[in-house]
């Protein structure tokens, strides 16, 4: 091992060192800072005052944090579940030659090209009290379903979730399409000859071959759903009265609107712990099943 390392030319080490230093300075160092900030009370102006674990004790008693945490669970399950299922269904449906297939694929992927903030503004127009969503319900004779989508706490989070899934589903579809291209068609044919029906062929033959893609999709989805910020901020800013607050939007509000940088860092640490927790559990399970 060490002999192999010694054979690496010095220049390569230099080239490796440059990005490492940049990464360390711009990513690791601020991240480490955020951990130490989480143990302080700091308004961003004066000196940070160490308070130990007080921020975390306050979080446990903070009703807005608890709402945000609950919303985040709904978000991870809803956003993750709907976009993965939707993306997979679309990928399987569009993974065969046919008229206009590439047009459909591009159309479904298109929202991904637009930034989340712009999608948010677009959906705000859709959900406006006199907007297209309520208009369509009116035309269909479903007036009783019309509501103020983004101002009604009972539906606001779901309204934002649909907008986010609308955008994410194209991305997941592309990942699965790539995965499906790598599956072996002859296995499916053999199973068909043996009398397996379409569901069995998909579930027993195709899905196991998608394991690699599944891992990528899972990691991407968990990370994306925990870091969701822009679309919620653009559509509701966590309102009405904090009912659509996610951990990320509450962290932003605490840090930059109200200036509690220590408290906001504590929220960031919670987000980090959740993300790492999810991913490690998944990778560990993955490793066990592969053994």
């Amino acid at each position, binding site marked *: 091992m060490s002999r192999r390392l010694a054979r690496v030319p010095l220049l390569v080490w230099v080239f490796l060192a440059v990005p490492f230093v940049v990464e360390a300075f711009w990513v690791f160092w601020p991240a480490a800072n955020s951990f130490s900030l989480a143990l302080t*009370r700091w*308004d*961003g*102006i*004066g000196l940070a005052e160490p308070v130990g674990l007080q921020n975390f004790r*306050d979080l446990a008693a903070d*009703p*807005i944090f608890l709402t945000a945490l609950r919303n985040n669970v709904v978000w991870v399950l809803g956003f993750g579940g709907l976009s993965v299922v939707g993306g997979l269904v679309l990928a399987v449906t569009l993974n065969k030659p046919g008229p206009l297939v590439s047009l459909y694929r591009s159309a479904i992927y298109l929202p991904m090209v637009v930034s989340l903030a712009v999608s948010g503004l677009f959906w705000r127009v859709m*959900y*406006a*009290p006199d907007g297209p969503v309520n208009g369509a319900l009116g035309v269909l004779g479903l007036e009783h379903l019309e509501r*103020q989508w*983004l*101002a009604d*706490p009972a539906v606001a989070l779901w309204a934002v979730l649909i907008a986010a899934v609308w955008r994410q589903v194209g991305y997941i579809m592309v990942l699965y399409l790539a995965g499906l291209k790598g599956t072996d068609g002859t296995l499916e044919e053999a199973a068909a000859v043996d009398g397996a029906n379409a569901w069995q062929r998909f579930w027993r033959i195709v899905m196991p071959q998608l394991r690699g893609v599944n891992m990528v999709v899972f990691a991407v989805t968990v990370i994306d759903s925990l870091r969701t910020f822009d679309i919620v901020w653009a559509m*509701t*800013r966590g*309102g*009405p*009265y*904090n009912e659509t607050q996610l951990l990320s939007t509450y962290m932003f*509000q605490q*840090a*930059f*609107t*109200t*200036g*509690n940088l220590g*408290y906001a860092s504590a929220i960031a640490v919670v987000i980090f712990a959740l993300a790492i927790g999810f991913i490690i559990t998944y990778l560990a399970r993955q490793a066990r099943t592969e053994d």
Partner: protein
Amino acid sequence: MSKGTITRRELLAGGMTLGAASLLAACVGTTQGGSGGGGGGASSGLVTLQNSIQDADPKAALEALVKAYPGGDVTLNSVATEQFRAQLTNYLRSGDSPEVLSWYAGSVARSYAEEGLLLDVSSLWEGDGPCAGFSDALRSLSSDASGNQIFVPTSYYWWSVFYKKSAFEKWGVEPPTSWDEFHALCENLSGQGIVPLTNGLSSTPWMASGWFDYLDLRINGAQYHRELLAGEHAFNDPEVVAVMEEYKRLIPYFDKNAASYTAQDAATPVAQDTSAMYLVGAFVSGYFPEDQRDDLDFFSVPVINDSVPTAEEAPTDGFFAAARSDNHQGALDLLSYLASAESQQQYIEQSKSSNLPTSPDVDTSAFSPLVQKGIELLNSTEEITQFFNRDSSDALQATADTALTKFLAQPDSMTSILDEWQRAAEGVFAS
């Protein structure tokens, strides 16, 4: 930050080599005297003005004003207000901060001054300085705890109930002169199928504080209001309950879509004559089509309790200078220019947003009747407050946003909402 980029670009344009430019970018605070971008004869070197004014006309007015600055080069960076608010601390703390920044007078500016981040601008308030003739109220608003001036107010505006004269005529109604008349007017309009009051609380939930502030000023008075916002009274005290009871009586008159509108959206129903009145700052005139602006009029929220002094909300805008910038003289020169009567006059005329000048030397005779009436209103009132967040803090504003928007949606849970508000406010005052 953006200053560094622009300076670098200008240096490149001046023919410096790439190596020198990146060398410069690597060190901080090397921009002094580096006016390589032309516009010669700069007496006070390069000055950066970090601007948070976002509405189109006022922004254009400031740009024109800065362009005409005779004292040298000014780099104007316009940043969206929300982002500006988030970044303001960073601007002021950085070793190479912008010289001059636009922001609000009052408690926010004072908290930065306490940290030593603001330049003392007392020299502009003395002798024949441009601010020497400003009112005492403005002087105390612009002073830090030790009595030094750290802010240069350049304009302010008033809050009132705005309506369209032509619409009131069409509906056969008159502006009310008492609180009972106001309620009768709302009843009358509702009866005609017109929504009496509009508001926009979606991405601008702080608009809910407008009515809260005014009802508190009218019921408990300005003194109590200031003390309440300073944490000396509780939000679940009987005085505040009385305010909320009065607020509750207004709820049936509000547009049912208010929770989905922004402050700007909420002006649309008034422009279209489907809604009648809007308690809002004078900046609202910019939200109306140009041909309707002369049609706008306003009346002050009528007296409710005649034993408290009259009071109006008049948020004050202006500029302060960073203590950690390179070019203090340049900052003071630019501030003098912005505060001068001529600059204020030009800014107000071009910004079309019904701002009032802070300088008594501005010739107001050419201003619109609406602005004249606004000046009259503020001159005749006994007490002036700013607005909820400016009289307290952005952190307390966040608690008010939650409490008030929730109250408007669930007025029957008032008691528990006020208790919750008080708990949240105690958290803000404790930190």
